[in-house]
Every structure is written in C-alpha cells, then in structure tokens.
C-alpha cells in the first residue's frame, strides 16, 4: 500500500485549509494507507490547547487531531522550530506526537509515496 504524508503548515481558522487537509487525511485512513502527519512552521498553532472556535461558529476540528492514532495514523511529528518560533512548549499543545527537528521531518517526507499540503 502506498504511503502518504500530510503537512499542516498554516494556522487554524483564518483559512479552511487545516480542516480540508484533515478531511483528506481521514479519507486516506479509511483506505488504510500508511499515514504520517507533520505540523510544520505555523502549522503547530493547529495544536494549541483550549481552542474554542465555536465562538466563531466554526467546528473545533482540533479534537480530531487527538484521535489521529485511532484513525491508524502511525506517526505524528511536531516541528521543533515551529514551536520555538511561537514560543510554545509541550505543555501548551495537544500531546499527540513527537517533537522533531527539520532533519527528521525531511527524512519522513522523503520516505513517503505522496506528500500533500493545502
């Protein structure tokens, strides 16, 4: 089975791309493709705890990130440089993956058959 990597690199809610990328990810999981999810750069903002987008009448899809393991997503990587840029520490974000440097992220992107960002 071909593998796929999803790279989230934008903050949530200002644009729809986070939710749209997540929807493709869940569909690929339904097809049982091996999946890696990377939160890169500003994408780490998708993982901030205590998001309340319902105040904007937007669904809180960050809850689904917590369930990625249940959807069979094997690897979740969180960009260390992205966290540093936004002065975030592990206590501020959803504990759903491993903190990774750019070298590790490069290796993961190289290893998968498809990489998608939106």
């Amino acid at each position, binding site marked *: 089975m071909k593998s796929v990597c999803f790279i989230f690199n934008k903050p949530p809610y200002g644009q*729809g791309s986070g939710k*749209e990328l997540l*929807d493709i990810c869940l*569909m*690929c999981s339904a*097809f049982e*493709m091996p999946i890696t999810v990377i939160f890169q750069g500003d994408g780490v903002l998708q993982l901030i705890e205590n998001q309340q987008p319902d105040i904007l009448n937007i669904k809180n899809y960050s809850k689904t990130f917590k369930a990625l393991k249940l959807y069979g997503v094997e690897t979740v990587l969180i960009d260390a440089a992205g966290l540093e840029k936004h002065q975030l520490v592990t206590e501020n974000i959803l504990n759903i993956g491993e903190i990774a440097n750019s070298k590790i992220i490069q290796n993961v992107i190289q290893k998968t058959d498809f990489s998608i*960002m*939106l």
Partner: protein
Amino acid sequence: MATFSLLITANPYSNQGQYSALEFTKAVLEAGHIIKRIFFYADGVLVANRLNCPPADELNLTKSWAKLAIEKDIELTVCVTAALKRGIVNQAEAERNALTSESIDPAFELSGLGQLTEAMLASDRLVTFG
C-alpha cells in the same frame, strides 16, 4: 508511460493555479502519459460553475477544462462537500437542497473525497496545484 492525477485547490479567478494545472495536463497528454483523474477541492471547485462568465477577452477556465475533458476523455471530479458549500450543484443536489437550478458544467462530476484517494492509489504521481 505513467499515470498522473491532479489535485487542484486554486481559486480559478484569484490565483494562477488553475491555468498552470491546465497547461500541465496538456503537457502530460502530449508526452503520451495518462491522466487518471483531476480532482477539484476547496476553492478549486469554483471552476466547475457553468454560470461563470469571464469577460470575452479572458480565458474561460470552465470551458477550457470542459473542452480538454471531452476531447481527451478525462475525468473531472469535483468534491461534493466543497462544491455544495459554494453553490456548485447538479440536478439531484439542487432538488435535495430545494434550489431552483443546477449549476455544474456537464463536463464535471460531483463525487466524494474517496475519489481522490482512489486516484492516488491508481496513479504513479499526484501533482497539486493551489
């Protein structure tokens, strides 16, 4: 000979991505390769609106895709969820949602996101244009 699928999210008249994708598709076919499916997602679905009326001296992207699809027998698949939100509906969806008419160009087809995954699994390459 290789099999390609495209994922297009570019807004047709705000970004260049739809035009780039169109030229890329033509080059794929000219090189003798196969296009498995072109999947329109996010704002990319807006190109499927048959009511788009760009000025006569601008390229009509809807008609350009439709012409290519008919001539070369290419599947133009539009994500139904993204499309409905943006007013791109076929007859069945128009009736289901109590709308006065359909709006999708007949060269395009509404379908689910599963069609994208299925296309990936059946293709050697997926190229995104956003």
